């Protein structure tokens, strides 16, 4: 029996089978690029260790811009956002069955999960304005206040559970983009958190709802933000420096964000296929590997926080400060956010190059009625940039650049946080040594993921 040939990896597989252009990538001098990337990260470590601490913390001092007023996002906008989501859910049920043509599938997996997350980390807290729960929750709570108090002991742990559920759909659901199933999932997820927000008040969204917490975490590393009455622009991480260390649940959540992103890359590699004994050229489909993907995700969610905790602990032992493990873990966890965002960019760049075109087509004609809202006669979706050496090289370098920059910022931020925590240059440097090694290895891992042959 003949199994049809796959040009696997040579061509993009949009949505969750993320785009790859592996064939040409394998021909690139990726060893050289990886070496360069790792060297850049090592150099960053040397610089932040050698340079005076004033400088290390100084680079995270933002530039003040115009005065800011504490604006409350208007309720109307929040309600509009909810209405839009509801409309999208309806279109998920009634619109095109092809996820590449359905507004809901594209809105969730391309616009929200790729673009909006990126905007949140690169520009600022847009989610606060458009979160689809806030409007309806505010309307109801006006008339009928929340009945329960969210126990403080729960912290951000419910949000971590909620995010893990989201990640399970992203990574293990057999058909995460299928419009009908997605409509049901979105509606249930919204209703679940809506009900809990009514019960516990809006606090639930900030501590119990995974997406809002994720968006809030990324907003912490956006270069632009308001602080002390002014808009300020600074190196990603300045807001982390300006705030107190997050509580335990949120700190672990931040490490989990990186864990999910890492597994999302790892589970596509030939290496991973080899571990599980699957033939990457004859991938049996997501339906058959649900259990494996769930196990992999669970392992990532345990292993990475454990590794990070170990690196923090060893550093504290070197600095003679092991008693401060709790504060140190919580302080350093946000330093992983730039790495998580770098992974996000690198991982989804090829996908968004393709899905962006589908989004344009749907924006041009959202109801599939033959409209030309953007004045485009016909959107031709092309993937030719995966076919030429030069464009594949550019894409690879952009991805590698995102990973290296993410790590470089993370190292500088982590060092600055250590200086703040210990107030002693020697202790700060010692406490950072194992974390720096962790980050160098993580750079290597990230770049290796990009250069590896992939099977989905």
């Amino acid at each position, binding site marked *: *029996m003949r199994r049809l*040939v796959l*040009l696997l990896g040579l061509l993009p597989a949009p949505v969750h089978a993320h785009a790859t252009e592996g064939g040409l990538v394998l021909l690139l001098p990726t060893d050289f690029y990886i070496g360069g990337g790792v060297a850049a990260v090592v150099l960053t470590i040397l610089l932040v260790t050698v340079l005076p601490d004033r400088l290390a913390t100084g680079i995270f001092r933002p530039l003040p811009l115009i005065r800011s007023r504490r604006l409350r996002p208007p309720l109307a906008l929040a309600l509009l956002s909810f209405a839009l989501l509801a409309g999208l859910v309806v279109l998920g049920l009634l619109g095109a069955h092809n996820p590449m043509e359905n507004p809901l599938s594209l809105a969730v997996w391309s616009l929200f999960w790729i673009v909006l997350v990126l905007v949140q980390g690169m520009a600022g807290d847009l989610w606060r304005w458009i979160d689809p729960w806030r409007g309806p929750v505010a309307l109801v709570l006006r008339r009928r206040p929340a009945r329960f108090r969210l126990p403080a002991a729960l912290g951000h742990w419910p949000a971590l559970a909620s995010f893990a559920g989201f990640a399970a759909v992203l990574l293990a659901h057999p058909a995460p*983009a299928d419009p009908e199933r997605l409509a049901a999932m979105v509606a249930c997820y919204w209703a679940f958190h809506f009900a809990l927000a009514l019960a516990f008040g809006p606090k639930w969204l900030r501590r119990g709802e995974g997406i809002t917490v994720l968006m809030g975490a990324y907003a912490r590393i956006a270069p632009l933000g308001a602080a002390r009455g002014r808009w300020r622009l600074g190196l990603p991480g300045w807001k982390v420096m300006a705030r107190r260390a997050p509580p335990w649940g949120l700190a672990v959540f931040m490490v989990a964000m990186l864990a999910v992103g890492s597994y999302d890359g790892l589970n596509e590699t030939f290496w991973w296929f*080899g571990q599980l004994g699957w033939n990457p050229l004859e991938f049996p489909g997501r339906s058959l590997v649900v259990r494996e993907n769930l196990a992999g995700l669970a392992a990532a969610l345990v292993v990475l926080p454990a590794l990070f905790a170990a690196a923090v602990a060893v550093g504290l032992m070197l600095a003679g400060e092991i008693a401060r493990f709790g504060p140190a873990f919580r302080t350093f966890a946000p330093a992983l956010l730039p790495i998580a965002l770098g992974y996000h960019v690198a991982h989804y760049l090829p996908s968004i190059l393709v899905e962006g075109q589908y989004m344009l087509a749907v924006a041009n004609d959202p109801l599939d009625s033959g409209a030309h809202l953007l004045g485009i006669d016909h959107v031709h979706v092309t993937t030719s940039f995966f076919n030429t050496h030069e464009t594949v090289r550019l894409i690879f370098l952009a991805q590698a650049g995102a990973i290296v920059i993410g790590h470089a910022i993370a190292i500088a931020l982590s060092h600055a946080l250590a200086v703040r925590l210990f107030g002693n240059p020697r202790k700060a440097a010692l406490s950072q040594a194992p974390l720096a090694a962790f980050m160098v290895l993580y750079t290597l891992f990230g770049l290796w993921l990009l250069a590896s042959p992939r099977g989905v």
Partner: protein
Amino acid sequence: MTETKTPSAGPADPSRRSAIATLAGAAAATSLPLWARYTHAQTAAPIRIGFQMHATGIGSAYGRWYDRTTQAAARLINEAGGINGRPVEIITEDDGTDPKRGAEVVEKFATQHNCDVGYGTLFSHVVMGSAPRAGELQLPYFVVSEGHHVASGKLNRWTVQPGITDVKSQVMAMAPFVAETLGKKVTMIFPDYAFGHDHRDFFTEAMAANGGEVIAKLAIPPTETSFTKYFPKIPRETEVIYHVMVGPAVLTFVKEMGEFFGPSRPAIFGFIDSLEAVDLASPGLEFLEGTYFWEGMARYAQPDQTEFDRHYRAAIGIDQNGASTRDPKDVSTYAHMFGCWETLYVIKAGMEAAGYAGPADRQKLIEAVEAMTEWPLSNEHPQGAKLFNGKTHQVFGPQYISKLEGGRLNVVQTTPIEAGFYPDEVDYTTRSF
């Protein structure tokens, strides 16, 4: 409104499935007197073809081109009056290139979308996973996968492959050319799993029948990404290398093979499947200059290009190099996607022959297709004339052997249809529905 579509006013783009318009149509229809609704549905309700598309998953690159070809053919069919006076509507569902989801999609076609037929599945494991469900639901299922599974007898009476030849036939048709023109002693290099094994088995047998011999068989583990250690195993007396490597490492394979042999190399023959949708001007492929490929249909327009090939390219928007007219770097899956086009026209011919009026006539449709024997080279069959074997549910056609010269593939031989014949392995017409 879908309910009031007439062929001439049919949708320009048959994929425009307007659920909202359909709802409006249903609402309007319910306001009509009962007799008017009834006659209306009988005359102008669309023929609903369920297109099982690999929109996501490992097949998505093929899926995109299968979709473009499908939409183009359906548009032309509608412009020419539809099928039995009714417009064609393509109902697309994504199966994620996943066998289990494939079966679900087939079920949706039959029970939810009220499709007349299911169509368009490409990847063999998805066909294998979906066809049994189509059989249970008695949904005519027209696959475009080139797998041998249909003709091997593994499937059922409801599954037909009338638009693309199967791999057994393709491989067999290559052997005479390889033995007579390139050399008698062949070393095969193939990935070590079912796909590669089929090539190994079919070609070894076919070479023996043509007076040649496969002297070495190099099975490469599917996860391999460097091949230098395998090349020394190629026997010195090898006259021809037959390669069917696939996957992301195929460019590396070609490059390393070029480095290994240098200027003095044996003749090389491969299947374009390795490089389908890849720009042959890609770096590392220079080594393939002067080598030969099987092509299901010639990617580059040939000097003797038929008017039918011209018509087909124009309808889909493909240039003379097999790439999109809107982006010359966007290379199509030209060697395979004609199967969608030709299958849609077979569905049309079958429905017309059966006087197909609705799902109650599904069995008549299969019987009508089984009774068909040949289709001439035409706008409907631009790849070439076809002979259809109603017993095995498999079509047979010409194959193209092309030589890579100056970065383009020039056809050097078109094999006769008979070169791909083999004894029947099944007679589906004796099986019950």
